[in-house]
Every structure is written in C-alpha cells, then in structure tokens.
C-alpha cells in the first residue's frame, strides 16, 4: 500500500445543478484517522466523497493528498491511485460469483492478496461460488467490503457503509476501518449511524438554509 500522510481540503464549494451544497469547507485528515461525515439527507455527503474521489469537479477550492515524501496531488486523476471506494452501489456483477468478481478486481488493482481470505474475513467463504444475483443486499455489501479491503489503497471513502448490514456486519465495518487506520490508512465515512469508535466528526449543514 502506497502510504499517504494526509488529506487537505481548502475553501471547497460544491454545487449540484444550480443548488449550492456548501461553500468554504476546509478540513484535514491525517494518517491513522477516520473522519465521520454527518448531516441530513441532501446535505452533500455523497457529493463531497465523489469530489474527493475525483468524479466531481468542485466549483472552487482544492482537494489535496499528501504523501510522506511531502508530494502533493491535487488533480482528480492523480488522486485516483490512492482511493479505495465503497459507494452506494455494491458493484457486484449479477452473473459473476463473489470469487470471480473479487479475483478480477484483485488483478485489476494489481494485488496479490488471496481472494479466499478476503471472503472469509467478511463471512462469505461458503458463498464463493454462488452467482452474485442470489446474494442478499447485506451479503453484497459484505462482498463490497471484501473488495475494498483487498484494494490496498490508503484513502478509504465509504458512503453509508452500514446500509443493509446486520449487527455482526456493522462490527465488521468497525473492525476493518480500525485495522485500516492502525496500518496508517485514512478514511472519510459518510454515515447516519455512529460507527463504534472515536474519531473526528464533521457535520454538514442543513440544505434548506
């Protein structure tokens, strides 16, 4: 895993269509920290994550990642190489089995981690050969978590990671994120439910005002 020492956001303004989500947002996340994003529906949590990932070009402001060698990467395409993404959708191809899907991404992301171990970690080892269309929503979420953990990227961006997960699944998310931070990773997590650990929080404002 290529290490990062921090994520810095300065004077960021994001718009969605003609509506301003927020402006002059500034914060930093350093290695080993997991920032929890809170805020009502429509306050811009997903858009902020998509902006950090480089999908969404901000109207104003900068988003930079810092490496320990004090290199800075501010363009979306350069940042992409550092990002582990867990979006709303799970990215599971319905015809592919979990093993096939994970193997594809492990190879695509140039990773040698054993796919079976990643599946076992998220409790899907017995479903490795079942096409993903037969998995439940929670099981697909677990599959997405397995893919995230083997992406070996230092900056995790998680959008509602707890959605449709059961109690043990929620514990699993907490464990994965804690382990990731312990290994020197960063995370920005948009969530309505508090994750089970301490860490910096950022509340985005009310979209009505």
């Amino acid at each position: 895993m290529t290490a990062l020492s921090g994520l810095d956001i300065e004077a960021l303004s994001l718009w969605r269509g003609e509506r301003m989500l927020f402006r002059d947002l500034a914060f930093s996340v350093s290695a080993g920290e997991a920032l929890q994003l809170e805020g009502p529906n429509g306050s811009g949590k997903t858009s902020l994550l998509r902006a950090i990932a480089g999908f969404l070009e901000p109207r104003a402001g900068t988003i930079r990642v810092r490496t320990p060698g004090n290199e800075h990467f501010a363009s979306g395409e350069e940042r992409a190489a550092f990002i582990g993404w867990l979006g709303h959708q799970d990215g599971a191809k319905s015809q592919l089995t979990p093993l096939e899907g994970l193997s594809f991404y492990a190879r695509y992301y140039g990773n040698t981690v054993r796919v079976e171990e990643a599946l076992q970690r998220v409790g899907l080892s017995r479903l490795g050969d079942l096409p993903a269309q037969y998995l439940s929503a929670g099981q697909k979420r677990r599959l997405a978590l397995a893919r995230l953990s083997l992406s070996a990227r230092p900056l995790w961006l998680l959008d509602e990671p707890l959605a449709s997960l059961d109690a043990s699944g929620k514990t699993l998310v907490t464990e994965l994120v804690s382990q990731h931070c312990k290994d020197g990773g960063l995370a920005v997590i948009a969530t309505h439910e508090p994750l089970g650990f301490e860490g910096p929080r950022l509340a985005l404002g009310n979209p009505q005002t």
Partner: protein
Amino acid sequence: MMAVVFFAAVAALVPLGVGADLKLLGRIAGGVLWVAAVLAALLSLDRIFQSDFEDGSLDLIVLGPLPLEAVVFAKMCAHWLTTGLPLTILSPVLALLFNLPAGGYDALIVSLALGTPAISAIGAIGAGLTLTVRRGGLILPLLILPLISPAVIFGAGAILASLDGLANGAFPLLGAFSFVAVLLSPFAAAAAVRLNLQG
C-alpha cells in the same frame, strides 16, 4: 449472440419482402447486409458502459490503475469481438440467400472486416454520451448513425464495384475511416464517460 440472430433474421426477411428477383437481390445483397450489420451492432451498443454504471462498477474501474481511455478501448474491442467479428463470419452464408454473384464474396468479407470496427468505435462515443440518459438506447442511434454512414457507403460501394469489375478505391477509404475512428474514439468516449460521472 442476440446480435447474430438479429442480423440473420433481418437479412433473411429482406428477400421475402423484395421477392424472387434473383438479379435484383444479387445487386442489393451488399447494401442490405451492411445495413443489417449496423442495426445488429446497435442492439448491444448502449450496454457498453451502462450496466457498469448502474451497478457501480464504473466508479471502481475509473479509480483503477488503467487510464479510462485504455478501458474504453478494451470495451470497444470486446464489443467488436461479440458483434462485428461473428457478423463478418456469418455474412457469406447469408449472402447465399441473396444469390450474391461469386465475385462479390471476397469484397463482402473484406469490407465488413474493415468497416465493423468503426461501428463499435463510434458507437462507444454514443454510449458514453447517453450514459445517464433515461432510455438512452433510443437516442444513441440518432447520434451515431450519421457518423457511421461513411462506412456503409464505402463498404456497400466496394461490394458493388467488385461485382461490376471496376477499380476499387473504396477499400482504402473504408480502412482509413475505420482506423481513424478506432484511434480517436477511446479519447472521445472516455471524456464523455467522465462528464457523465460528474452527475
């Protein structure tokens, strides 16, 4: 697979509609097979990026180590391998239905082999542009059919020219058109996909 069946069905329907004038059928064979090939390729074009977009895979692919242009090129090749190539291989069999004169078969196969990559390439641009459009598959043909028409003109023209024993200048033009389309499309299609991911 659907594209191949569709291609065969359209090509088989035309002689039924036109009637049993063998001379006429032989003349129009090249044009009909070209149009059928374009329509068959259109069937699956809108899915080039859309299924990945809908299930979230496209985000993961964009964040991966390959440049998006390379991914688009791979998807274009995959589309051609599953439509253009089988259609080209099947076309001589269907040409039998049209009583295509013996001199036309070589030109038919060569023109489809040269020209169908352009359909996949230009189609990928349309697929990228219509990615977030609801029922984008309906707008896609309107966008790309005008752009593909040179391939149809040169391709069908080459077959007719070889039937008439004329000097054939259409193949170099068709090849050049296809080459430029395949070369430039990945950049245009990748830019279109990036634009649609902004939403």
